[in-house]
């Protein structure tokens, strides 16, 4: 009885604990691609994509205006990388982001290939592993007049040094709260718009075998630039009712 009384008293005392500041939240993450009709690249080729699977993640969301060195402590993160079918516009829930309530102003993420401080080279996370160790796997056909070239690509987007996250970007300011959701949408079209398909056509054989993007050649570089500096995945918050 004495023990119960003591415990009850202590429980009452503990109930007086005051405000401890912002708390942790769990935010569902939904991904989608884009319904893509054939489109015209800058050099006049009309491109029809048949496959555009991209590995995205891990994601970090930051309070700083610019992610990077100032994001040693993140506001939110999803450490898994996932594969997004860039041609499927339907939203698919792939997991949850864990975060702390508060302002998000920027974000950073990899394309499935990460280079931790403790490693001597980048490595594939689960998303990239599902794509054979690559960030992006593409396949399609480009046509101009009578000419036609089938192409395929397995692109690696790697951080340029250990500890660096590939894509760092500012976002519209958002107050992260419980009940929010994160929507990640990719659109592969801009990644291919600057590809010079003439160069691929020069390599095409008469059997119509797909031409592969070679590392560091223009088509490959155009895609990497498009993914990192051009059209990066759209990150949008579906806000909870406030």
């Amino acid at each position, binding site marked *: 009885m004495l023990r119960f009384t003591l415990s009850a008293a*202590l429980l009452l005392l503990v109930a007086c604990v*005051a405000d401890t*500041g912002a708390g942790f939240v769990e935010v569902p993450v939904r991904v989608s691609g884009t319904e893509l009709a054939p489109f015209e690249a800058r050099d006049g080729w009309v491109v029809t994509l048949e496959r555009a699977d991209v590995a995205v993640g891990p994601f970090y969301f930051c309070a700083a205006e610019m992610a990077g060195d*100032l994001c*040693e402590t993140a506001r939110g993160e999803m450490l898994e990388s996932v594969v997004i079918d860039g041609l499927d516009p339907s939203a698919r829930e792939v997991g949850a982001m864990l975060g702390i309530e508060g302002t998000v102003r920027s974000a950073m993420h990899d394309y499935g290939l990460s280079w931790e401080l403790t490693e001597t080279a980048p490595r594939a996370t689960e998303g990239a592993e599902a794509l054979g160790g690559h960030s992006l796997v593409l396949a399609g056909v480009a046509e101009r007049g009578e000419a036609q070239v089938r192409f395929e690509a397995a692109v690696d987007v790697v951080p340029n040094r250990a*500890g660096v996250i590939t894509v760092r970007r500012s976002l519209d300011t958002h107050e992260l709260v419980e009940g929010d959701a994160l929507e990640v949408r990719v659109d592969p079209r801009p990644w291919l718009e600057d590809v010079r398909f003439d160069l691929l056509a020069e390599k095409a054989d008469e059997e119509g075998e797909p031409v592969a993007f070679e590392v560091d050649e223009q088509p490959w570089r155009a895609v990497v630039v498009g993914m990192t500096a051009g059209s990066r995945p759209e990150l949008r918050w579906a806000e909870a009712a406030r």
Partner: protein
Amino acid sequence: MLRGFDAEHGQDIAVSLMGLPLNQPSHIHGQGYLDLGFLIPEVVSSLRVTEGVYDPTQGDFAVAGSVDLRLGVARRGVTAKVGYGSFGTLRVLGLWAPEDARDETFAAVQFRRSDGFGQNRGGMNGSALVQYGFGSGPWRYRLLGMLHGSRYDAAGVLRRDDVERGRVGFYDVYPDATATAQNGFAARALLGFEATHRSASGANGAVGLWLGFDDFRIQQNFTGYTERSMFEPDWVGRGDLIEQQNRTTSLGLHARHRTAPYRPASWLEGTLELGVQARLDQIDQAQNLIQAPQNETWDQRVDARVRGLDLGAYLDLDWTLAEVLTLRGGVRADLLYYDIDDRLGNFIPRFRRDSFIVGFRRSAAGVAVGPRASAVVEPIEGLSFTLAYGEGYRSPQARTLEDGEDAPFTKVRSADLGARWRLDEHLDLRLAGYWTKLDDDVAFEPREGRLERIGPSRRLGGVLYALARPIEGVTAAVSVTYVDAELLEPPPASAEDPQPAYDEGQSLPYVPPWVVRADVGGERELVDLGAHALRGRVGAGYTFLSPRPLPFGEEAAPIHLLDASASVGWGPVAVGLEIYNLLDRRYAALELTYPSYWDRSAPRSRLPHRHTAAGAPRTLMATLEVTL
């Protein structure tokens, strides 16, 4: 923990040994760093605890209050004591207290070693304390010497999710070399001399001189593998093993004089005291990142020499009116001077072209003045009421000062309202409410492994203390402290720290709102065995800490601990058993929340995570003591 102040690193409680200050100013590990590992409990005769900052003699670091350790040995003779217990712990004590000398004269030496609980917690330390009192008549002299050395391994902290997933055991250490290389080392010497004078009129005074040397070195890794070298940015991932070094050489003096009681009227009596306390410190400090196990330095963060001078003077009035009202008050002023040679100041990053030589030498000075006043009314015998207000200070970490800056002392304002009821020798009850405001509090920052400023804070609370001796030989005491501790204005978000860990108005991190300590002990003669009686002694103590707020809205689990002891003694021989954490409760002695990266097989998390350092499990210690 005192009045909502966490004294783990000593920054908020001024501790002295027979009047010699023990806190370390501008210490690399934490301002006011305090290590009491040198203490030999058998020679501590009493603790003089002054809560709050109402006494003009209280100087630097007296924020929550101050404690003066008094040394003396009442049981004269030669004592040998051996203790052995859990985790291969061995303690040996030798104590000599000459029978023809006063209690204050003794020489004691102790040695202790242990494998420590769990993994990587072994260590050993030794200390010697010698005090010699001499002189007779109005002048008395005292010479005090202390030598101490210790070295221990440390398990550091573990991520709670790693413990929950079974990746590492609660009492273990991470198997990485950068974790198993955690350890600490300390060596300290202190020499003090004091002459006291007491005249027949009641006037009294003292003058003292002391010399101190302290060597501190620690290796700790809180964050795993997150750091990048400032000197060579491509040096990364070598383990965030922080090495801190601090060497302080100090010279101090103090003098005071209290007048004979002055009686201008039959109902009025009082004295006046004037005092001065001064110290000069030379502090060499460094902080590096090192790579275990060869301890190769892969980054330098601090390399500095600080010379500091603290000159404090006070006036203390102590007056009694009609034996009912006692007024005590005065004022204290401290001047602090700093000369800083920051050898890594104006650091030039590798990507920038040199246009000067790295270094930032500077000096700064400041003054802290604060009134102290208290009134005690005793309307009837045994019942008294106290009202007090005082302003104290904590000196700044010198390296944070700019050239010519008016040294920004941390000002503490404190007020108390209390009552005490003493019912003869059987019951002593005290109840006090207190308010304390600091204009710059500090909290532990794991990335740097040291205390950092977190802005002004306010504590409002109360203390209930009861001491009872219901029957002869039995003593019981309970202390209950409540504090509402609020962080008033944490540093705002900035470019360098866009996501501060603290919110305005939140509870102060690491401060439990409730602290309870209860003790009961008994001693009696068991049986008469001829030349000596067999005496028995038992005791138990209970400690409760309520959940502690952590950064980022987290909260540490409450702590309940029960300790017990028992001993029997026959003449010169005594045997005893002490049990700490009798119920073998698993608890975290330290809980922190911050980002870390320990599991190198997974992507790095940048979210704050809970980290714990295990508290000791049930620990037994058996002792044998012989006094001749």
